[in-house]
């Protein structure tokens, strides 16, 4: 089963909001801890190493994009 990137939530705003609210009032350090736990919990729920790898690749493309943007700004 490939990674699903179509919209899966009936109310996507609720999902985004739930994650945002979980971070409310946390320091950056606490937020990072929360994210780490959340990633592990969700990864286990998916339980498919291929889907996880695709998700990691999709997320990692943001790092590459950010690098390129930084380089362009420096030029």
């Amino acid at each position, binding site marked *: 089963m490939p990674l699903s990137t179509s919209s899966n939530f009936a109310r996507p705003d609720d999902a985004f909001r739930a994650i945002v609210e979980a971070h409310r009032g946390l320091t950056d350090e606490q937020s*990072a*801890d929360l994210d*780490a*736990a959340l*990633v*592990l*919990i969700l990864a*286990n729920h998916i339980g498919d190493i291929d889907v996880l790898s695709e998700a990691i690749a999709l997320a990692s493309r943001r790092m590459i994009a950010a690098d390129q943007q930084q380089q362009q700004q420096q030029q």
Partner: protein
Amino acid sequence: MAQAETQARNQTKTQFGYRRHADQDRTGADIAVHQVIVVGAGPVGLSLAIDLAQRGQDVLLLDDADRIGEGSRAICFSKRSLEFWDRLGVGDRMVDKGVVWSVGRIFHGDQQLYQFNLLPEQGHKRPAFINLQQFYAEAYLVDRVEQLPSISLRWRNKVVALEQRNDGVALTIDTPDGHYLVRAAYVIACDGARSSLRRMVGAEFSGQVFEDQFLIADVKMTAEFPTERWFWFDPPFHAGRSALLHKQPDDIWRIDLQLNRYADPAVEKQPENVRPRIARMLGHDKFEFEWISLYKFQCRRMDRFIHGRVIFAGDAAHQVSPFGARGANSGLEDAENLAWKLDRVLRGQSPEMLLESYHVERSAAADENIRESTRSTDFMAPNSHQEARLRKAVLSLAKETEFGKRMVNGGRLSVPSIYESPLSTPDGQDWRGGPRPGTSMPDAPIAAQSGHAMFLTDAFIGQGTRFTLLEFGNGASVAAPEGLGAIRIGGQDGFVDRDGLATARYDAEPGTAYLLRPDGYVTARFRHPTRGALEAALARAVGLNGRLS
């Protein structure tokens, strides 16, 4: 250290004399020519020499020292290693002396996260592991060597030069009486992590260096801890680091403490500095030191285990971190894998290319051992803030969730390698279970017709540890190819499957047959074998059908 005392108390012979050999008087065209020379009389070299000798080969075994190595070093020997040692006739001695265990516990702080059992089922001759000081294992192997006249074991014989020829190797050996020369068809280098033969063939040995330092202390004390493997993350007695406690024979306990990356080894090793740490761990200071060692480690392997007529095995070929008992055990798996292949090649029964399968199978096993032990090490000593954060999340989730417990990595212990091998015949029928080709044979309790209770591994030894057909029910009534051993379970005159476990573990139906290699690995299996299918599988398993080239 008190090791010499312990050894003396147990009357274990660990010191051996140099003896001049007639080979040393031979020069020029007259120098001695041996079939096999094994270099290094550690657990791997000794076991390999015994296996070869039992198969009828003459073996010259050289060691540069005159005594068995200092300290306990390797202590955990796996079920697979014990089954190999059973075939060599030393299994009982190892198990009788060793501390049997199968349960491990993982703690975080002062709280137990989980426990695991490495052999939760009954009906196996050997336990998941024994703990035994390496010097005992070596001493028992040397005793066995001394019963085998076809092994010439020469202490204080140090290889100082090596020359590859088309049909063999010439070695220059240094002794207290000076140098002498010998030739051999094959040289097997079992001379350890700092292998001088590896340097002599000019092989690279690269990999990952770990900066973390660990302190091993073997302490003598009487204690009521159970015979289990206990591993702590961030224990109260050693804040922020990891610790391991493990029992050995003679009331010796192995303690392994992770140290600061920047700790000064000379200072850390001083008994007066080690003592308070361990007293904090044990809650008392009624113990004596048996051995203290500080180590860093590397995970690396040779690109090729075979260099011309020199073949590398054990630590000489690959090194792993100690967490997982994958060092000595994987070296012993090398030995059992190589012995039967080399025997066949020396007899001209198989082409030299059969040896290539040793490299294929065992280098893949080394990769797996390196991967597993590197992951364990990275979990114990995270390399970045984010790695540490993820580990913290896992340890914390482990308190509440099953998946968290499964992600906690305090060492993944050695299990027999599974080979994706050119020697294996792929399954042609449907199987619901049982060992697939490339897997080591599972044990099971059986009984002889007389009612005598035994194990499947005993029956395999009874067939002379050669290629053996394991059949179920009344058998396939196919005439097996000549020279094959035969074990039949069930039927009129077969062994009795005492608890139905052999049938279950081999997913067997009447007519099912497994073809076992001389090292106890499954190489092919059939629901109803034909003579032609068996012959083809056997030809493939001995390298006679060209699949290796």
